[in-house]
């Protein structure tokens, strides 16, 4: 058990490092760039209306004070961390004066829901079918499945989402292709709302699953076809252990360990996929928020989304890593 605590401690340290470096990088990229947020906002505001020169000067002063860009970089950096600890990243310009963090928190459940469900479905389908395909190598169904998996796997998220959009938007319009729920439904814990949310999530989730399961399938098939040749499997077969027990308890369980490690490593990539999928299907999550923020030149909101997404992905990886020893007793013992 002491080994497990060491393991957790080491991972926690890594988590903190990732979050610290990720957020610091976000800060320095935005603050060392030659582009001044104050001038950006000012440019956008003055483009839409006529202002007196004095008003512009006053506005520049107010904005400089708000962003704190007149202070030295180091104190800005310390300030940034102090404010971040309180969860405050300044007001969003997109929906002034709503705090940027409030917008992010509103979008976060959508992205998390989509990400978690589709990752679990992808992982289960890919590994289950991949494991069975590795065990029954001559099965025609799994061979066909393997070809489909291989054909879908390398295609970028955007293209798959886009093809789904064309199929279900133009050719066979049965599923909703835009938004998180129907416009005429009031949010709340009732069946119409939940049902609406579920039907709206089918296409975004489907596009993530279609791209994702192939990698797991191919990996698991290769792993299982190696494990099957091990002596203990032959022994179990000769000893008359039931097929189900061999596949489930001996073969799959051993092959699943490296797949679980891989799960933690792919989460960052899956998050990127989610961002794109959300944009294609106009889903009200973090991805859409990020893209809107960039298009509107909203400095605080871009910072808030990047900060939260870096931390959330790091945290997710940490959690998967913690679950790992529960699956593999050898890691626990180390």
């Amino acid at each position, binding site marked *: 058990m002491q080994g497990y605590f060491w393991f957790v401690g080491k991972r926690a340290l*890594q988590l903190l490092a990732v979050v610290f470096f990720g957020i610091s990088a976000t800060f320095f990229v935005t603050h060392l760039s030659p582009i001044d947020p104050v001038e950006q906002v000012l440019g956008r505001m003055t483009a839409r209306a006529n202002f007196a020169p004095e008003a512009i000067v006053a506005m520049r002063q107010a904005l400089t004070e708000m962003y704190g860009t007149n202070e030295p970089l180091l104190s800005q950096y310390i300030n940034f961390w102090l404010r971040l600890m309180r969860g405050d990243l300044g007001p969003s310009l997109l929906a002034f004066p709503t705090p940027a963090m409030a917008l992010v928190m509103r979008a976060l459940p959508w992205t998390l829901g989509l990400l978690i469900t589709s990752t679990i479905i992808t992982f289960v389908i890919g590994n289950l079918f991949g494991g069975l395909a590795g065990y029954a190598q001559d099965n025609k169904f799994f061979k066909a499945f393997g070809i489909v998996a*291989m054909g879908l796997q390398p295609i*970028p998220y955007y293209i798959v989402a886009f093809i789904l959009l064309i199929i279900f938007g133009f050719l066979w319009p049965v599923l909703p292709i835009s938004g998180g729920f129907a416009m005429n439904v009031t949010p709340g814990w009732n069946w119409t709302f939940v049902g609406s949310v579920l039907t709206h999530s089918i296409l975004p989730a489907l596009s993530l699953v279609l791209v994702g399961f192939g990698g797991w399938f191919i990996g698991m098939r290769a792993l299982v076809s190696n494990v099957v040749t091990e002596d203990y499997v032959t022994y179990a077969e000769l000893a008359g252990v039931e097929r189900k027990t061999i596949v489930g308890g001996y073969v799959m369980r051993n092959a699943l360990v490296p797949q679980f490690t891989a799960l933690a490593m792919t989460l960052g990539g899956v998050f990127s996929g989610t961002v794109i999928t959300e*944009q294609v299907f106009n889903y009200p999550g973090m991805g859409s928020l990020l893209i809107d923020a960039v298009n509107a030149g909203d400095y605080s909101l*871009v910072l808030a989304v990047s900060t939260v997404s870096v931390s959330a992905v790091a945290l997710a990886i940490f959690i998967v890593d913690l679950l790992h020893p529960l699956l593999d007793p050898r890691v626990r013992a180390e």
Partner: protein
Amino acid sequence: MLAVFRDLLRYNIEFAIGIVLVGLVVIFACLSFFSPVDPSLIYMTIPDQPPSAQYWFGTNSRGQDLFWQLSAAFRNSLMFGLTVAILSRIISIAVGLASGYIGGWVDRVLMFINDIFVAVPIFPVLVLFYFVLRNNLDSFTLALIMACFGWPFDARLIRSVALGLKHREFTRHAVFAGMSTRKVLLEEHLPYVMPIIFSTFMNNMLWSIGLEVTLAVLGFTNINNPTIGTVLYWANSHSAMVVGTWWWIVIPVILIVMTFLGLFLLAISMNEYIDPRSRLRRMGA
């Protein structure tokens, strides 16, 4: 080298299909060197013409011949993928070999950095770079940024091979013969990791071209530079599917799928070739 190539073609159907697909796309992209029109100019032909004998892939709403437009776009995207792959290979070879061979605290520090890079979601970071650089973000800068994020997986792979090589007889011989660390790594160990580098090269190209498509489709790159992604960006911004200029979307998508499938098949067949057991199984031995 040629014998390896012949064996792969003969015994590995995936490799054969992959080479045909990638070959077609590369030839198509190379045609852009003989392009009669400058692909960055607009309103050079009649807009919205369906595919015909004169315009093989039709023309788009911006008055560009899609055949030459796509040809230039694929050349730019493939060049982009190559640049990212080469740059990130250099980083991953350096980190992987050094980390595996030297070991100790060098290994620990490098792998710690490695783990940080693995955990950072790349897409928000790229969007952030676009956000601050805007139109200064040309494709070489983008390639440089992506290369900085594309190495950690492969560095770990190379490190695991280098760890095995470290305790082999020939490494000890080389060290006793007075070879410097740099020489051992470059002349003794590098040839052993070359096959891995080739197969990860393809995967890295897939990854970087895919990301570029995504960024460009959202309009987060220089949209006047024809690439696979910007072609789709313009098609979307002219609502090609709604207006009925389907060839503007369908033809690029078919070509993209060909490229990705081809590169992917090359990568996995090379991966299989590296593993001698699966190679023998395939050759029927």
